[in-house]
Every structure is written in structure tokens, then in C-alpha cells.
């Protein structure tokens, strides 16, 4: 795909409904199997995030993708019921494999249902397909990569956990952009203009290399990955193993010192 093409990060409700009708798109529901079995968006297949995460080696992912009837040309739309974070992690994994046409449903399944839109409990018949592997290492950050690049002037490291967790401990040099900041009341991502203004205020713009991370498996930061792409930022990476791995490796950690901010929380 050419660099020019604006990346489509989300699919709106109306487009998805017509794509479902003409069966042109593969819809992936990443909720748990029980939830999927009760009801889901018509034609959707189920790939619970936990299933994917149990082994997200490209070879295994390829098998899963083939079994879902996805080849290089199949448009894919992913949804969840967790403000888009789980869906983002699955979408990113497909992208990493080399799939170029994957996007997120602009809203969650609950919202879809509350709008009275169609849903059923039928599991579609799938014909297996053959997808190729063209890994995209340019969207992945490993801990080694992060360690060597995070202090470069052109690199912005973003922590997407909640503010108090960030204050308590974070990767040195990271800035805080909690995942809640990215959404609106009804959409998993803010409108483009809104998002752009917010990121511009934070000086997250231009051709910086941007790396996102969150607590453990790259879900919240996966959502941030798509938020950043939605405004056309060209060079975004996901540190997919995130803070859990970083801490486990006993790498340096920074903290906001000398303040008892936790005591302001009413939780």
C-alpha cells in the first residue's frame, strides 16, 4: 500500500451494516465465547482476545487468520465491549502479520445493541483461506528497542495507563496520556479534529517516532496506537509487552516523588 493512502482506523456503524449485507467484510468479535454465543453482530466470527494472547506467534496467528477466512484482500472490522482496547490489540496483531485492511468498529457492542441494531447468535460457516506473512516490524517495539531509542530527541514515549498509576511508576521519559482521554461518550475514539487539537497541545505531532505502552499486554496502548494513526501520524509503534515486561526485566523506573497523590482518590 502506498504511504499516501490515509489510514482508515475506524469503520462507522452505517458502513459496517451495509458491508454485512453484501458480505464483503469479515467481522471479528473479540469478546469471550459465552458472550459471543449469546448474541453478536451478524456474520461475525469469534476470536476471544485471551485465545489470541495465549500464543501470538506469527505462525499461530496465521492459522487463526486463515481459519477465520481472511486472505490478504479481505477487509476486516474488529469490535469488543471494552471501549475498543481489546479490539485494537487484535487489529494490531493482524496488521503486524501484514494485513493492510483492518479497522475498528467506531463503537462497542453494547452501544450497538442499545441502538437497537441487528444481532443474532448464529455462528457463520467459514471457508478457510490462505493469508501471506509480511511482518511489519516497524509497528512493533520490543524492550531492547525501547531502551536504545527512547531517549532519542525524535522519539515520544506514551504511557496510556491511568494517571495515578503513571505517577506511581513509569518508564523514564514517558508522558502520560490515559486511555480515557482518547474516547468520547459514544465513540471509542474522539473525532479527528478533536484528537488532533489535543495531541497538538501535547506537542505529539509531525514526524516523531511515537511508542505507546500500557500495563501488561498492549490493549490500552493498542487503542492509543489507533488514536494516533487516526490523525495521520505516520510512525507509531506499540510496545506490546508493556510495563509488566519492563518491570519484570528490572529496567529503570521513574516516579513522581514526595507527594501522596493516592490519598486524593475516592476509590
Amino acid at each position, binding site marked *: 500500500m502506498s504511504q499516501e493512502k490515509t489510514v482508515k482506523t475506524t469503520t462507522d456503524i452505517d458502513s459496517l451494516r451495509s458491508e454485512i449485507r453484501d458480505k464483503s467484510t469479515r467481522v471479528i468479535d473479540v469478546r469471550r465465547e459465552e458472550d459471543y454465543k449469546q448474541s453478536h453482530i451478524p456474520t461475525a466470527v469469534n476470536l476471544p482476545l485471551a485465545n489470541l494472547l495465549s500464543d501470538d506467534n506469527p505462525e499461530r496467528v496465521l492459522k487463526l487468520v486463515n481459519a477465520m477466512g481472511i486472505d490478504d484482500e479481505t477487509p476486516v472490522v474488529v469490535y469488543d465491549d471494552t471501549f475498543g482496547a481489546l479490539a485494537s490489540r487484535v487489529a494490531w496483531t493482524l496488521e503486524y502479520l501484514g494485513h493492510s485492511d483492518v479497522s475498528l468498529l467506531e*463503537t*462497542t457492542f*453494547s*452501544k450497538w445493541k*442499545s441502538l437497537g441494531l441487528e444481532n443474532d447468535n448464529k455462528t457463520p460457516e467459514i471457508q478457510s483461506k490462505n493469508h501471506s506473512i509480511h511482518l511489519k516490524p516497524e509497528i512493533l517495539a520490543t524492550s531492547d528497542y525501547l531502551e536504545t531509542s527512547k531517549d532519542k530527541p525524535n522519539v515520544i514515549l506514551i504511557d496510556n495507563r*491511568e*494517571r*495515578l498509576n503513571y*505517577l506511581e511508576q513509569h518508564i523514564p521519559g514517558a508522558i*502520560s496520556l*490515559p486511555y*480515557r*482521554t482518547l474516547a468520547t*461518550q*459514544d465513540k471509542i475514539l474522539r473525532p479527528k479534529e478533536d484528537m488532533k*487539537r*489535543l495531541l497538538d*497541545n*501535547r*506537542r505529539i505531532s509531525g514526524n516523531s517516532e511515537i511508542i505507546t505502552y500500557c500495563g501488561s499486554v498492549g490493549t490500552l496502548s493498542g487503542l492509543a496506537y489507533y488514536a494516533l494513526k487516526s490523525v495521520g501520524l505516520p510512525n507509531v509503534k506499540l510496545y506490546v509487552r508493556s510495563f509488566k515486561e519492563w518491570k519484570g526485566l528490572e529496567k529503570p523506573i521513574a516516579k*513522581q*516523588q*514526595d*507527594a*501522596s*497523590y*493516592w*490519598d*486524593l*482518590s*475516592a*476509590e
Partner: protein
Amino acid sequence: MTVSDLKQSYPDSPKPKINWARIEEAEDFANTVKLFRQGKYDEDSFRRYRLQHGAYGTRMTNDYAMVRIKLPAGEIYPHQLEKISQLSEQFSIGSAHFSTRENIQLHWVILEDVSEILRGLSEVGLTSREACGNSVRNVMCSPLSGVCPDEEFDSTPYALATARFFLRNPLSQSLPRKFKFNFTCCEKHGMVRMVDVGLIPQTRDLDGTIQKGFKIFLGGGLGNKSFVGYQLEEFTPEEDLLYTSIAVLRIFDRLGDRKNMARNRMRYLVNDMGWEKFQNLVLKERAIVRATQSVVTRLEVDPTPSIIKRPIRISDESGSSIPDGYARWLKTNTLKQKQSEYNSVFITLEAGDITSNQITALATIIREFSSEGYARAGFVQNIALRYVHDDDLSRLYSKLLTVGLAKSGALTMAAPIGCSGTTSCNLALTNSHRLAKEIQRKFLELKLDQDDDLRDSSIKISGCPNACGQHGIATIGFFGGGGRVGKEMYPNYQMSLGGRSDGETMLGATCHRIPAKRVIPVILKIIELFKQNKKSDDTLKDWMHRVVNGKEDSEIKSILDIRKALDSFTIPPTKEEDPDFYTDYGSDSSYHTKTGKGECAA
């Protein structure tokens, strides 16, 4: 996602009467932060600008701000709460803070995000403009104004009109220092002698017609050095309210100390000049203001009363049983209004903190239970829901219980105040905020909220001498400092007793220094001494009043006797004996004092 759905199902909820916001200010703030970051704005002018727009710096860092949202007269509408809940989740810590001056504060906000909060606030007509800095701060009004059985008339419209007149008014853009107005309902509820301008509504009979007016108190205030205000004149008719306010501000603007930051509140001016001289000056200045206003300047008082409409019951739960704790809650959290069959219900928080989920839930509860359709912030980091019908109280209690907002003791000593302290304030020496929470938990555990003898007493805690926690007017007040044993430090509090802010306003008398980790046992000990020595219908407040004024005839005759009885609590153990003694609440490392640049005067 459910929030926007809910909103649509309440089409006729009341709308705020005044839009306090200006959207341009959000854009301007964003641009100014950019210029500041590019070095095109010097530190001092930027700080002044930031404070003027309601954003304080934060403990040990100016990369974070505390955004103070003003609620003029304390009024807050459900859709405004929903917006604040969202903003708190998106840009703050997922909790918000109800302050003692009817502001809602969002902490640990990234400076670059403040403009987004201002933008969000402007969508619901709220502002943080002039919430900090040298300006007319939020104009307060008693949460009971309009419903208090003892009031002469409702002062809310006057508070709102005063707030509207001074907001963005050139007269109040660069005062020597901050300036506070408090309106109240009656002598008992409110704090009119401990503020720059305090007002109690009153009426007089003028040849058969009833004339409205105010009792105005000037020159009081709490702080490093506190003063009790003086009454200007017997009766100030309502037409003179604005002229008086302008006159006082003009004098302060002209004569206030602009150099010495520690002494530039108006109370110092009054004190230095002497009350009579100041009083004459105000009366003279008022005559000039009255005569020279080319166009008649009037307060735009909107007398339209709120529409009282009992919300329609959505579901009938009359068969369901009333949960435990209802009687206790009813006794300690509700007041009968002057309107028969209606009640004001107080929601007590822990040191004013509330989660964003609770704020959203509260919005729904207001719509379902308050017949006036909005809520009022209280004076003690709490919230009042008014016009709740007798028949709805038990259902309301059940609802509050499900969202963790049914804590009892709201109107009792079991609802202590704690300023922000080391959770966010640059000047803090101790974690006063957490201490207030700990005391509350202990009081509720011991069911002291139900003790009628303690009901009208109060506990208030500041994290340093600056008195944001209003310790000076508490029955038992504390301000933080550090104690020392050799090289080791421990968190310590100066305790004062017998302060009050009602008709007999006085500042608490200094009693003893109490280590942080001994504060709770000391309070319990004081209660024990009181119980042993009280007269049959004494309250702690009455008893303490006699003790600190040397008028008590039991075994405890003076504050010195209390001091003696507490000596044993103040002796530091060694670090080996009790390492916990050397840490403050909310911290497990050993205590040390650390402060940054304060912005209270900026």
C-alpha cells in the same frame, strides 16, 4: 456510554440561569501554554495568567495543574456533574474534590490539558476563571439559602448577581490579593465573620412595608494570621449592596498592601488602620460610588424562584424493605426545610473526594429525587440535595447506598475537613487530607456520629499554618508541621480548641503539639474528658467554649488542664520502639518536610 442515553430521557430538567463560560478562554489558554513552553512568556506573567484562569501549580511540579471549577452560590446541575465526571476521567485522576468554598477541583491535570477542561466546562456553562489568583474568588452562598427555617429571605439571587457582576470585571482583575464573598441564610449556618465580606439577609419594617437588606461583616478571614470581621452598620438596604461591595473593593485596591505578600489580605488593612477608620472610609467611599455612577449600576438580581416539581416515580419499590442504617443516616444527614414535607439531604464524602462514577450516579439521583432538579455544594466539602420529599427519603437512602454515597454523620463532628496537604499542595508539611479520612473512619466505626453531645462540634485540619482546612474555627483544629527527635523527624500537628464561626465567632486557642499518629487517640481522650466533666445538657462545643474562656468549674478549668491531661501522648517513642510514629499517613518512608514555591499570593 450510558450517560448520553440517560441524558436524553430527562427532557425537562431545569437549566442553569447563568452561563459563566467563555469558550475563547480555552483557546487562549492553549495558545498561552504553547508560548510559555517556547519561552515567549516569562514565568511570573505566565503564573499570574494561569491562576487568573483557575489553574494552580502542583506539589513539586508545575507540569501538573489543579483546576478549580467555580460553583457560584454552590449551584450544580446534573448535566454539569456528568461533564465534570467525564473530564475527571479523561484528564485527572478519576476522582474530583468538593472544596470548602463551593468549588470542584480536578487534580494532577497535565498543564497542556487544562485548555481541554476549560473547553469541556464551557459546553455546560461553567468556568474556572478567577477561581485562583488576586481576584474575587467564588461567591459562596449557604446550601440552605431558600430552605432554612431561620432565614429572613433567600440570598441566593444576590450571591449569583454579585458573582456575575464581578466576574471578568476590570475592577477585580488585579487586586492586591484574593477577595472572598460569603452569603448565608442565618447566623447559625455559614461563616460571615471569617471572610472579607460576609452577608446575612435581614429585613426591617419601614412604615408598614418590609424592606430587604443585609447585615454586612468586613475584614475577617482565616490564614497564617486570622481575624474576626466587623459589622459595617445596623442594616444595609438591598439597593446599597452593590455600592457597598464596590466601595470596599475600591478601597482595598487603592490601599491594600501590594508588596508584602504575607500581609496583603484586606483583613490586615482593616487591622492596621483600625476598624472605625476603615468603617468611615467605606461609608464615605460608598457615597462617592453612589453619586458618581453615571448610569445606575444595579445588581441583576433574578428573583424567579426555582420550579419545585416532585420527580415522577419511575418504578414503584414501595414493597421493598428499607436497608440497615437508615435511621442513623436520617438523623445525621438530613434537615427539615421550611417548606413542609421537604428535606435537605447532605452527602458527606471523605475529605471532599468523590469518584467519577459516583459523580455520574449523583447526577441521576438528583434528577430522580430533588424537586428543584439541581444540587448545592456545602461548606464542609460536601453536597446538599434539597427538596427531597418525606416519602422519597428511604428510597433515596437505598440509592445512595448502592453507589457508596450514604455515609452517615454529614451534619456531625464525624465529617472532618482536611485540606489537600501533601497529596498535591506545594506548601504542605503533612498529609492533612488523609488524616481527615482516617478520623472520619474511626468516628463512624465508633458510631460517634450518633452522639448528640458531639453533633454541633467540628474537626478541621490544615497541612500547614495557612489554614485552608479552616482549623482556626474548629472545636478541635489542627495544622501540620514537623517534629524532631535528634536527627529524626516525625509529622506533627499544632492543636487548637474552641474555635467557632457562628454568632459567637472566635478563633481556637492553641493547646498542644500532637504527633500525627497520636491525633486520633488525643481526640478520643478529649471526648472522654468532656464526658467525665460535662453538665447534663452540655454539648462538647458548649463545654469547650467555657473551658477556653476560663469559665468552667469542673476538674478541667482551663485549656492548660486539657494540655496536662494530654502530655503523655506527645512524648515521642524511639524509632526502634515504634517506627510507624516516624512516617506520615499515606507514606511508608520516613518523614521529612519538603515544600515548594507557594502560589497563594500570586
